[in-house]
């Protein structure tokens, strides 16, 4: 099994690592680049050691992501997996420190407020229990009832751990599913032996799905991974006896990937958009040369069906919320022809949110895609069969993910994309399912704007309705997702957790608003989040105000302010306080409060500012948006 096969190999790894160790400047960007090469566990360890020696326990200055303090708890040796996890976080531009409980002492440490675990103050916890620990006491002579009781007992103990962690740290929990190293005792019909450890593990892994969902725990699906790679790849029985390493140290890069993907997804840092090349990526041949009849696609040839499979995988990604785009060196008319006329095309023009077919270089086109869709370059994955184009984009745009794909067999491409885990998601929301429709609606809006004679008539013709609601458990997932991934239109960029959002819901002196925008073309989904908090002196401070950039220029900002003012007045406030905390990405809202009529009362050296609005004199702005309180379910 070739680990990290979607990353480009680095023949000069050793030289680059030595250079990194000697680097006098900020080592972080170069370390991230090295982590994004195809490295085995030894190189992973070496990179981890170098980075840790240089950073000496504190995150690099100016990091835009949230550092993670991960506690890895278990009952066997796990130390050999930490470097893999930390480097996989590094790969995602996330700084991670890790902690491991004293051997076998996870429960004691959870229970003891003076333990090293509590002193570590984790912001995420991974439970990685070995199968031997979870099946203790089980044996082949056990009765059905005793086996059932043992099963219930284990489930309860897992839930108890989760509850302890949640109460103590209020942080996200990851539960590794159980590796099954046990030899069969009956054989094919192993399930007829109540005391079979192998069946016990299989049942536990099945039960963990519902149990974890019910308790808001994310799974690290080691069992799924094992099903694909085989037990022998992941587990070496001799090593288990020698060092109590259940997962082979050689697999630490892949193990780290599984964990880091969840950490990144929790921060809203999964990739959002797949940018597709056309010739020899979506179909065989070159449309400009071979013509509609000449390209290879669909039934009739193995190669053609391979390309169909690529398209079907992309289409399914789109159905679950991944945005599709095209970047192709072609005349636009040629590039569009298969989408409009080829009977075997699975993808249609309406599936593509941004279509760039021209003779500009690919980096320029990928930049244009990001701009048009209003998403960061670091949320794009670029799929191209051509090694030259891949390397060019990697060099020009290192933040874009560019998977290595076998250039001679499209049948293998979906597997590589899936293995790379770019689009790891923790949940699927209605917004995700409707995303591709939303981009189509956007095109309809653009057309209306083009025909409208002036802005007012365009806004009026849109027939906009703002439907708002207080934070609730139904919308919570989406609220946390937006709070953690919105970078540009975000006044304070405060990253709140599930627990923070629940605290807002419970506090009568605070209000959290989730705001949806609909218009004649459709539902834009939740497009703005506001958190306000009453202070002692009859003022409400706006802790968080963020908005999706796709509704810029639609009068959402003044309409939202009307809503905030109304909520603040209901709490008895006479003043609104707005704060701007500058980041690398939120320069667009520097003058947000001034534009809305606030008075800037304080400007900080870093460009941040505090602004106030006198609510006793505030007149609601008149806009073209109709506002209503509504339900989100």
């Amino acid at each position, binding site marked *: 099994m070739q680990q990290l096969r979607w990353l480009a190999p680095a023949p000069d790894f050793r030289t680059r690592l*030595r250079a990194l*160790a000697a680097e006098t400047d900020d080592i972080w960007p170069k370390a991230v680049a090295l982590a994004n090469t195809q490295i*085995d566990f030894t*190189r992973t360890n070496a990179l981890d050691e170098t980075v840790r020696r240089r950073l000496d326990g504190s995150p690099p200055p100016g990091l835009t992501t949230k550092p993670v303090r991960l506690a890895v708890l278990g009952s066997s040796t796990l130390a050999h997996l930490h470097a893999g996890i930390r480097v996989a976080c590094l790969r995602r531009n996330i700084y991670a420190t890790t902690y491991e409980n004293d051997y076998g002492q996870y429960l004691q440490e959870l229970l003891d407020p003076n333990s090293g675990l509590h002193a570590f103050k984790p912001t995420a916890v991974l439970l990685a229990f070995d199968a031997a620990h979870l099946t203790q006491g089980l044996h082949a002579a056990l009765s059905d009832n005793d086996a059932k009781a043992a099963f219930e007992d284990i489930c309860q103990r897992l839930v108890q751990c989760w509850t302890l962690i949640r109460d103590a740290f209020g942080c996200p929990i990851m539960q590794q599913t159980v590796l099954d190293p046990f030899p069969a005792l009956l054989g094919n019909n192993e399930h007829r032996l109540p005391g079979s450890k192998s069946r016990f593990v299989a049942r536990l892994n099945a039960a963990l799905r519902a149990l974890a969902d019910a308790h808001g725990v994310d799974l690290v699906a080691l069992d799924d991974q094992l099903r694909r790679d085989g037990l022998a790849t992941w587990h070496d029985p001799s*090593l288990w006896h*020698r060092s109590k390493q259940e997962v082979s*140290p*050689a697999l630490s890069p892949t193990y780290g990937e599984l964990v880091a993907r969840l950490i990144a997804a929790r921060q809203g840092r999964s990739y959002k958009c797949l940018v597709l090349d056309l010739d020899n990526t979506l179909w065989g041949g070159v449309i400009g040369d071979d013509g509609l009849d000449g390209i290879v696609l669909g039934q009739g040839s193995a190669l053609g069906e391979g390309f169909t499979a690529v398209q079907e995988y992309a289409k399914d990604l789109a159905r679950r919320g991944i945005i599709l785009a095209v970047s192709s060196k072609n005349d636009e008319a040629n590039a569009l022809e298969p989408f409009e006329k080829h009977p075997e095309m699975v993808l249609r023009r309406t599936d593509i949110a941004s279509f760039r077919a021209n003779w500009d270089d690919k980096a320029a086109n990928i930049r244009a895609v990001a701009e048009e869709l209003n998403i960061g370059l670091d949320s794009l994955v670029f799929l191209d069969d051509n090694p030259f184009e891949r390397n060019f984009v990697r060099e020009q745009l290192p933040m874009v993910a560019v998977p290595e794909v076998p250039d001679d067999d499209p049948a293998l491409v979906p597997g590589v994309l899936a293995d790379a885990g770019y689009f790891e998601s923790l949940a699927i929301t209605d917004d995700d399912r409707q995303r591709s429709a939303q981009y189509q609606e956007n095109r309809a809006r653009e057309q209306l704007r083009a025909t409208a004679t002036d802005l007012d008539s365009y806004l009026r013709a849109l027939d906009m309705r703002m439907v708002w609601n207080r934070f609730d458990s139904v919308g919570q997932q989406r609220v946390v997702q937006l709070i953690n991934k919105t970078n540009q239109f975000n006044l304070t960029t405060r990253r709140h957790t599930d627990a923070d959002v629940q605290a807002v819901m419970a506090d009568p002196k605070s209000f959290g608003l989730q705001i949806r925008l609909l218009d004649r073309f459709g539902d834009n989904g939740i497009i703005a989040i506001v958190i306000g908090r009453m202070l002692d002196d009859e003022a409400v401070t706006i802790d968080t105000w963020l908005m999706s950039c796709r509704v810029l220029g639609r009068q959402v900002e003044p309409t939202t302010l009307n809503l905030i003012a109304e909520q603040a007045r209901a709490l008895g406030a006479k003043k609104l306080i707005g704060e701007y905390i500058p980041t690398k990405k939120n320069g667009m809202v520097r003058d947000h409060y001034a534009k809305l009529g606030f008075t800037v009362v304080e400007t900080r050296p870093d460009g941040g500012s505090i602004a106030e609005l006198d609510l006793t004199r505030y007149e609601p702005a008149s806009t073209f948006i109709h506002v209503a309180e509504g339900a989100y379910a």
Partner: protein
Amino acid sequence: MTDETKIYADLTEIFNDVFATDNMKLTPTLSAKDVAGWDSFKQIEIMVSVEERFNIKLNTKEIDSLKCVGDLVNVISKKAA
């Protein structure tokens, strides 16, 4: 290059990677006590790397009998032959 020289060359690469250095000097009598940081974890890292590089599987007895680099080279040359 004799087989043994080749094994030493490959092993030196592995040791350099494992101990993140450029100048590991392997001799037949070199053992864990001579190298800073050569603990039981590094030992396993070396074993797993050796198995991957030489495409062999070392059994428990063989690993237990290793006292120095020379022993390791002997096992490899026997198994990889």
